[in-house]
């Protein structure tokens, strides 16, 4: 019992330390610039929503959120659609070049985005996809698809092949078996995969910023630009930052049960 209590104290201290920087951002987002610059206050004394109002009324701000959400969603969908059949193939079949292909896929996860910066810019410009959501979504597939294949392969290997065979005997066609029986069995794997795909696409800035200029610009890029142009509007910057945290919290809330049990089963 004593041990549990010291553990609880330990984890509580860690969580408090973890949340302090975020609290500080939240705190600042409700202050006026005057209050921010005039001295340190632990909570907003002139509580204001003005910073948030600025963001929600200015299209150049809120479009950034919509752009980010859009390309992240496209990315998650593409990632899952292509990775699911591939992971199934890797977990069930031996085929010419399978091992090489698998390692080549994984090696792309190890490629520094900075390496691909310029070639990507030229590639997407030349095919007319520059400054579109699809361009960013495709670029993010570079690191998300290999990771997704890897995670899903782990989960699928955990499902005995007897299930596949049983389904064929019961007269299921392959697509029907895959969608109706197989996918529900690895749904926590799909949850974890979607979580990772969302996470790495949502947090990435380098590629997203390089491949966009106006129409598909992510919120993260708008934040940096605004800081440069109009001096530093700390309050709005903080509010914009807070708003980028919220989608992440929603996603983790949805997959919280899978994350606890899912990570180890699928190796990640």
């Amino acid at each position, binding site marked *: 019992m004593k041990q549990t209590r010291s*553990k609880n104290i*330990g*984890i509580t201290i*860690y969580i408090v330390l*973890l949340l302090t*920087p975020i609290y*500080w*951002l939240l705190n*600042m987002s409700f202050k006026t610039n005057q209050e921010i610059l005039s001295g*340190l206050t632990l909570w907003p004394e002139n509580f204001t929503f003005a910073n948030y109002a600025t963001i929600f009324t200015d299209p150049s701000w809120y479009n950034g959120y919509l752009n980010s959400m859009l390309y992240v969603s496209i990315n998650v969908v593409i990632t899952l659609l*292509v*990775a699911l059949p*591939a992971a*199934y*193939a890797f977990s*069930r*079949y031996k*085929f010419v070049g*399978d091992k090489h*292909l698998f390692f080549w896929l994984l090696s*792309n996860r*190890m*490629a*520094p*985005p*900075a*390496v*691909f*910066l*310029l*070639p990507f810019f030229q590639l997407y410009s030349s095919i007319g996809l520059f400054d579109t959501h699809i361009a960013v979504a*495709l*670029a993010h*597939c570079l690191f998300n*698809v290999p990771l997704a*294949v890897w995670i899903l392969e782990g989960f699928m*290997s955990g499902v005995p092949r007897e299930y596949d065979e049983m389904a064929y005997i019961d007269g299921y066609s392959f697509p029907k078996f895959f969608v109706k029986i197989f996918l529900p069995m690895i749904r926590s794997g799909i949850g974890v995969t979607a979580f990772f795909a*969302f*996470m790495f696409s949502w*947090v990435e800035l380098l590629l997203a910023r390089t491949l966009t200029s106006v129409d598909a610009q992510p*919120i*993260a890029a708008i934040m940096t630009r605004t800081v440069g142009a109009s001096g530093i509007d*700390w309050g709005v*910057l*903080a509010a914009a*930052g807070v708003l*980028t945290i919220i*989608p*992440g*919290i929603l996603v*983790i809330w949805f997959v*919280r049960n899978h*994350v*606890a*049990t*899912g*990570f*180890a089963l699928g*190796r*990640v």
Partner: protein
Amino acid sequence: MVKIPNNRAWWLVLPVFLLVAFSALVPLMTVVNYSVQDIFGPGQAYYVGTEWFKEVLTNERLQDSLMRQFLFSGAVLMIQIPLGIGIALMMPKSGMKASLVLILLAIPLLIPWNVVGTIWQIFGRGDIGLFGWALNSMGFDYNYTGDTVDAWFTVLLMDVWHWTPLVALLCYSGLRAIPEAFYQAAEIDRASKWAVFRYIQLPRLKNVLIIAVLLRFMDSFMIYTEPFVLTGGGPGSSTTFLSQTLTTMAIGQFDLGRAAAFSLIYFLIVLLISWLFFTAITHADKEK
């Protein structure tokens, strides 16, 4: 699992292959192409062979940046792996409390990287940031924009804040997979807490730890956005890591040939070290 030989499985893999080939092979060819040419402008390029590679390998600025990168990634692994394991051991096993801790822990992972930089940029400032203010008022002469040591400390602290939760989450799920009977047996065998960790928990964390080490190595080795926002690579170039050096070269100075050669070397280093980690950890197990 015994796998069935079946070449038609290629059809299932084809979409992934095409997609990744499009996103990776085409750009990679471009990079290789650049790396052996000197480019002055559109249509004006000369074949230079391995010149750029020689140049890059002897370039002091790049060597310094590479050293800094190794130092940083090494420090990241040394701090985050043990800390992550420790946090996972402290986390509650089940119930509402466990869900809550899980969600709170994962928050830093889901914050866009430039916002992570912004948060610490604000938090560490002496005038408007709680952290900087607290250190200063405790008598420390702390200023991350002016002092090299402070800058390093802040970048490292930021990365620990940002990424230790990933290690902790991985270890936590590994710990959860250990059946209760093992703890009961250890209790019966009068194992000390250390022995429980050493002989039950650690061996069963091995798989997730391989993943944690690999992911943390790769991602820390490619770090760009967070230190760029926080310190801009400064003071001087004391927190300029490889990705930033490369980006400055390619986009800032448009030095394409050199940047391409550098890119390839960079990529090879990541691949090589990841491979070394992977084989070292998996082989150590096989030999016994």
